[in-house]
């Protein structure tokens, strides 16, 4: 350990690492594109029953096999990106935007406002996320707007906590004191002095939060409590094809792999852009 030598970064490992750095963002972009255009680029009608057996394996014709109705899995997954990626993106944006706003305000205003908001949201953190999801769905049902709100509410407290601590750290720096001593307004201090210095951590947190939201949404759908038929996100696809599991049908495993490809790609993209340390301490 002591006279540490760092292994030189050459050879196959390095090439792998370099291509890896390119591939991961590419996968993220691919799924983003599918969220918008998936429905149109799908090879078959995602809802159309094809001339095929149920739970067919992979073939030339149906790259990822068919589902329990004999529909083309590839088309259903590509079309499902709209729900998984779309809902998650909306929910994450909502949670992060409110978290940043509240965190900024708490750090710039401080005092009672800060204490009240912090206490309240910190208490909400002690409801495990899946549990919180179940309770909210039990109460409000599972329409898509409700799902977006539910996911945003669940992740808002964590988002707030991170952003508040980042904002408080920035607000303690001397240049903020200089601006205060000059007589600048709270709004100017929030937007011009503090916010620009939060961009990095906010983006990293956005990525991590997005992963959590995707996983939670998929879990809810998998339990039948998320996106409802006939609409189907990737979690729903796994659920509706579970009967194919004993036959080893790709219809079960492929949507799950789609989820994993998205979350892993986002994860590794964050790592390569922001460094490995961002993750630690994030809830």
């Amino acid at each position, binding site marked *: 350990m*002591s*006279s*540490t*030598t*760092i292994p030189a*970064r050459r050879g196959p490992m390095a090439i792998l690492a370099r291509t890896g750095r390119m591939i991961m963002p590419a996968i993220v972009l691919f799924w983003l594109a599918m969220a918008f255009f998936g429905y149109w680029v799908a090879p078959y009608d995602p809802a159309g029953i094809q001339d095929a057996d149920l739970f067919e394996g992979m073939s030339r014709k149906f790259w990822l096999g068919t589902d329990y109705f004999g529909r083309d899995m590839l088309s259903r997954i590509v079309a499902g990106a709209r729900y998984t990626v779309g809902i998650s993106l909306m929910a994450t944006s909502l949670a992060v935007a409110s978290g940043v706003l509240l965190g900024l305000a708490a750090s710039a205003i401080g005092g009672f406002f800060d204490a009240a908001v912090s206490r309240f949201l910190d208490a909400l953190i002690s409801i495990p996320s899946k549990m919180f999801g179940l309770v909210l769905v039990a109460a409000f049902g599972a329409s898509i707007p409700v799902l977006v709100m539910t996911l945003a509410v669940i992740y808002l407290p964590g988002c707030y906590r991170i952003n508040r601590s980042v904002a408080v750290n920035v607000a303690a*720096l*001397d*240049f903020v*004191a*200089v601006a*205060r*001593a*000059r*007589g*600048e307004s709270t709004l100017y201090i929030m937007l*011009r*002095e503090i916010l*620009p*210095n939060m*961009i990095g951590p906010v983006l990293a947190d956005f990525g991590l939060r997005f992963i959590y939201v995707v996983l939670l949404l998929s879990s809810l759908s998998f339990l039948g409590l998320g996106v409802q038929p006939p609409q189907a996100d990737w979690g729903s696809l796994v659920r509706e094809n579970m009967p194919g599991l004993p036959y080893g049908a790709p219809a079960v495993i492929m949507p799950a792999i789609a989820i994993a490809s998205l979350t892993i790609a986002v994860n590794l993209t964050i790592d390569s852009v922001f460094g490995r340390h961002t993750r630690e301490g994030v809830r």
Partner: protein
Amino acid sequence: MEPLIDIRDLRIRARTAEGQDIEIVKGVSFSVRRGEVMGLIGESGSGKTTIALATMGYARYGCRIAGGTIRIGDIAVTSLDEKGLQQLRGQKIAYIAQSAAASFNPSRPIMAQVIESALIHGLMGEAAAREKAISLFRAMAIPQPETIGNRYPHQVSGGQLQRLMAAMALITDPDVVIFDEPTTALDVTTQIEVLKAFKEAIRDRNTTGIYVTHDLAVIAQIADSITVLRHGEVQEIATTSQLISNPRHEYSQKLLAAAEPALRPSPVTDRQARPLLRVSGMSAGYGLTGKDGMPAVPVLRDIDLTIGRGRALGVIGESGCGKSTLARVIAGLTPASRGTVTLDGIDLAPGIAGRSREQLREIQLVFQMADTALNPKVTIDEIIGRPLTFFFGMKGAARDRRVRELLDLTRLPATVQHRFPGDLSGGQKQRVNFARALAAQPKLLLCDEVTSALDTVVAAAILDLMAELRRELGLTTMFISHDLKTIRAICDDIMVLYSGRVVETMPAAALETGRHHPYAGLLLGSVPALRTDWLESTEAASLQVQGVPPALSSGGCAFFPRCTLAEPGRCNTEVPPFRDYPGGIGAACFRLAAE
């Protein structure tokens, strides 16, 4: 005679955060004879610590020894394996680090850590090791030598921990001891005791050592010869007396000049100049305000001060005594809980919200850490231009012109205007810091430790700039520092703070003469002078009480626990009144009043 330590063409490489592989020590060679101490001096980042650690065959995470040889006696350190290195470390060479507080394991009692290396290397039994540790504690003048080892690190003061760490290094009677800035983290009045203890230990044991520091005056007391480093390269190697009397290399000359900053002449010599700032009866602190109107954490009590127009007041005191808080109170960032702040005859509201924009403009603050005082996401143009727009409504070409004038005034190249703070060096950032304050055309400039984070040579240039600005703009300044030499170089009057109270005020000229408050006297006597025999000749160390201070009953003199002149029964029960003495000195001390 064969040198005991011999370093030849040492090269150390490191991987930066961006993944680049760079050379941080570029072919350094020097040698140290048995029984001598070699000083390594240089600015931060010049590779001092890296070289010192390399002599133990150690490189920090991310660094590696890439070339050269290191010999300790007949051991070739660079070709030892892990086992060999373990046997070398702690037994043949020992290390004393900068921060003792961080270098002791918080979970283990002190004694167990002090004797650890003796036990690891199987040099003696546990009982014998304890015996030896206690005798070392005695030699280091550590109070309560018998029992201090049972305590945990957080239960012991910084100065004592530093000496305990020396005992930890000496327990195995190593051939070589590495001192890595061992007094830098200490207050100057604590530093002197530690230095004395080190020097005695070195002399008594005929220790061979490498002493790393950035402070020429400190190293002059300890080292026999000095290696001057810059950017990982040796600039000059000379004996200590030669280096401080007759440095050959240009960089050494600069270092020497900066170590004893010359007095900058004052533009306003009239002590009776019309007051610009007057603070009276002011108390302040942090936390919620209690029933008695005082904050939960009181920091400053009953502060009175005046600064004459165009004059510079230096505020000195150890860290945590409330210097920065004083500046914040005057600027309105920390509202005073009692007393008044008057600028140009007008009482200012305690908080920013209650002050007019004009009043805010007239007082400007310059902070210590230029790194945190400049918003890294904003261009220099915007940083300096914002006050112009905010206070004077300047825009477009007019503002642009004024920004360039200010850059010129602070001796910054015009090319930095559209850069970001991250692109600038430490000294340049501090100049931008000044330019921003000057943009507001203030009457009063509050400078909080503006040179403390800079390397001495850079700091000297900033002092020149300040003197120039005072001369050209007639600025009134309050200059806060923990370093007496800096204050003396630039200030007309000096105010000494101790534990939140003013204990003495004096004209700068009275520093060397006159009778002082016991704390001020201790402070003056503790600042190392740039001559090799200063440590032997100073009496400062005997000016303070050692050991566990008696409890301070509320209301007494704050300095009572450390004061050798203290009069128990009086000093610890009444607050000494502030009186005037000959030579323009004012002080709060019963003893001084009685004489």
